């Protein structure tokens, strides 16, 4: 029953959104069409429209630069025709209030939705020599599409009866809840479908409503989520007694629902974007060409810094180096700081999380300054031990090292805190027993700490590696990819494409590839988590 209500609520929600957006798209499209039609028919068209009464207001104007103007982009409108009497004026002076009003109308009359739900559209065309002709139309609001509530209730009732009947006849069937949910959703859909079709029958030109990538992603998410919710809801009614699973679902439900909406929609959006390309302000579907371009490393040799594969290797190196250093240092410090008898441990702990606490935007730049060839502290210290100044950002390995050092500094506190928490899961009497048995510190670490720490620490390491893989700001701020983008990782490349060159589709394709690489990586790491769960 509850599952049904959820399903209906979701279905109605999707319907509402769809009807509202579709209705809006249609209203706009018709207004636009009418304005364009009027533009080609001129003043005669205005007369036709006035007689037919299909529009509330319409007008045609002609505009040109004021004669002798020093600024060819200044314009003044001259009304040729208007459905409202008294608006038609020609060659008026700039101060004339009528012309000002006309100009106002043209300025305001972009495609807009009026407060009463009507639409106003303007269309223009260039006539050469800086002259243009413009037309505007105002339409009454389109008919509203309402949710058929009584019908919906009837359909629900019918579906329930059918379901109940099925349940009685086959009490042992395991597929019963799924069948029930499906029945209800088919009923609801069947009822809503004609309405949706009715919305669509309002003659929408094909050009309208395309390229709304977000809207598409949302609809897709709704389509994906609704059956999921249905099945999950059905799970609750598994068997005549409530199944133990439903407790588990109740526990994870809210978290996964939130994640589902806020992660799935952006994800689908990103995937959809990866097949597009922005061209002259329009989003164009380009199929797989972004992917082909990236994976063929775009005419570069595979070992050249800007090729996908070179960057991938650097990314893997970067991830590995960071994760090892973060975990090693973090765990080491946690082992020292976990000791209850150590004095000032609270102070040390607080001091050591400072790199995590201070916004990294400024500290990363401080590190960049420290690696300056001539005035940086690092070279200064090196000079103290007789090492010649290093131009850190001119060679791959030195620049890479500078990035890793900075990110290690920024990242170890997090692993330290995680390790401190994880270490508390090990009962201290185990250590006591071990030292009674004469085990050395190393043996204790190897045989007690390591195995018992794994369940709590491994997840953090896996997630840490995923985050490091996608960590763009440190590399962006410290080495900036120097020399020649060789220290860039995949995500900094994607960021560059998106925000330095406005190639969002290409960047999205990069993101999709990153996603797949990480999914493959997670299959490897699954072994860790699986073995630890026994």
């Amino acid at each position: 029953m509850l599952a049904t209500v959820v399903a209906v609520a979701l279905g109605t929600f999707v319907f509402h959104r769809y009807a509202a957006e579709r209705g809006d798209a249609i209203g706009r499209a018709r207004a636009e069409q009418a304005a364009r039609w009027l533009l080609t028919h001129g003043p005669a068209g205005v007369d036709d429209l006035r007689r037919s009464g299909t529009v509330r207001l319409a007008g045609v104007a002609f505009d040109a630069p004021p004669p002798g103007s020093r600024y060819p982009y200044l314009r003044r409108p001259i009304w040729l025709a208007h459905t409202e009497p008294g608006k038609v004026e020609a060659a008026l002076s700039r101060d004339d209030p009528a012309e000002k009003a006309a100009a106002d109308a043209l300025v305001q009359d972009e495609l807009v939705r009026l407060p009463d739900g009507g639409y106003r559209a303007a269309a223009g065309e260039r006539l050469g020599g800086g002259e243009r002709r413009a037309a505007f139309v105002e339409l009454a609001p389109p008919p509203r599409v309402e949710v058929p509530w009584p019908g919906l209730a009837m359909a629900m009732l019918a579906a329930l009866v059918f379901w109940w009947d099925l349940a009685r006849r086959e009490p042992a069937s395991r597929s019963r809840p799924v069948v029930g949910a499906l029945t209800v959703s088919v009923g609801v859909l069947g009822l809503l479908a004609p309405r949706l079709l009715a919305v669509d029958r309002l003659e929408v030109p094909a050009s309208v409503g395309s390229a709304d990538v977000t809207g598409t992603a949302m609809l897709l998410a709704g389509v994906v989520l609704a059956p999921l919710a249905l099945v999950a809801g059905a799970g609750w009614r598994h068997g005549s007694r409530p199944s133990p699973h439903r407790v588990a679902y109740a526990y994870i439900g809210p978290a996964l629902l939130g994640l589902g909406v806020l992660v799935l929609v952006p994800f689908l959006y990103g995937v959809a974007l990866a097949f597009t390309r922005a061209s002259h302000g329009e989003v164009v579907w380009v199929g797989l060409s972004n992917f082909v371009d990236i994976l063929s490393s775009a005419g570069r040799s595979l070992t050249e810094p800007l090729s996908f594969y070179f960057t991938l290797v650097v990314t893997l190196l970067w991830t590995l180096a960071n994760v090892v250093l973060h975990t090693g240092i973090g765990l080491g410090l946690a082992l020292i700081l976990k000791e209850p008898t150590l004095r000032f441990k609270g102070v040390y702990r607080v001091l050591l999380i400072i790199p995590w606490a201070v916004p990294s935007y400024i500290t990363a730049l401080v590190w960049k300054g420290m690696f300056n060839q001539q005035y940086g502290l690092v070279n200064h210290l090196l000079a103290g031990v007789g090492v010649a100044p290093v131009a850190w950002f001119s060679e791959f390995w030195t620049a890479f090292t500078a990035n890793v050092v900075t990110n290690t500094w920024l990242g170890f506190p997090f692993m330290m805190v995680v390790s401190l928490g994880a270490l508390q899961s090990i009962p201290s009497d185990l250590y006591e027993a071990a030292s009674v048995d004469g085990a050395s510190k190393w043996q204790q670490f190897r045989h007690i700490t390591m195995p018992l720490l794994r369940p709590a620490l491994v997840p953090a390491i896996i997630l840490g590696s995923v985050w490091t893989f996608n960590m763009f700001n440190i590399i962006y701020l410290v080495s900036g990819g120097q020399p020649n983008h060789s220290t860039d990782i995949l995500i900094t490349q994607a960021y560059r494409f998106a925000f330095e060159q406005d190639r969002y589709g290409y960047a999205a394709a990069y993101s999709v590839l990153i996603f797949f690489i990480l999914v493959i990586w997670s299959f490897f790491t699954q072994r860790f988590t699986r073995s630890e769960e026994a």
Partner: protein
Amino acid sequence: MARLDHAFKHVFLVVFSVATLFPALWVVKMAFRADQSFATSMNPLPTEFDLSNFAALFGDALFGRQLLNSLFVAALTTAVGVFLACTAAYAFSRFRFPGRRAGLMFLLVTQMFPGTLMTIPLYSLMEMLGLLDALLGLVLVYSTTAIPFCIYMLKGYFDTIPRELEESAIMDGAGPFTLFWRIILPLSRPAIAVTALFSFMTAWNEYILAATFMGDEQAYTLPVKVQSFVGDYTTEWGYFAAGALIVSVPVMALFFALQKHLVGGLTAGSVKG
């Protein structure tokens, strides 16, 4: 022996802490300097003690409001994130149900799609839910960002809690909620402290989404204010550094408060008891 051992540890910790604090000292230096340029001197120790940056920040009419916004968002994110993560992690740790593995995988997968292009669809979602310009919208986004890690961390920790404890409680007639509330949660305080700190940080330092979603300076969070000192050509580093310090203080205070839960021996004690 133990004392000598501690002495070594102290020496090491002092040296390490100093090395760690060194880069952060430049931030302090810039914060207490009157001029707004980036400190490039070799010496990170503050050479002057000028409070004008702080005075300007605290003197801003909206400072208190923005601090409150930040605290509200971060606190609520922590509460929502930790609560939802605890229940979900408990289910993942203690129950075997269809879709469990898929659910865990899904959590991991959510972390894998890079967030660079997420602002656009999130904006549309927030608009659709009517949560633009609402701090609650930020809470929603931040909690879902923090939850996957929190679930993973807590699940790992719950896995280490011996089931014998629950067994004995069940003998005493405890239901699952009592198990969860009276046994699992108290024993997991260290992990909850870690996830709380993490959730807090996630919400506390974010500024891009906050700046994009909020349409009124009354609704800005503190990091938005701090980031607004970064311009297209120049940055007012003095203000920025002072703001960065102000922003980091609550984090450290929270950690200081939470670390009493990072003490060992709890598990052992309850097993014995």
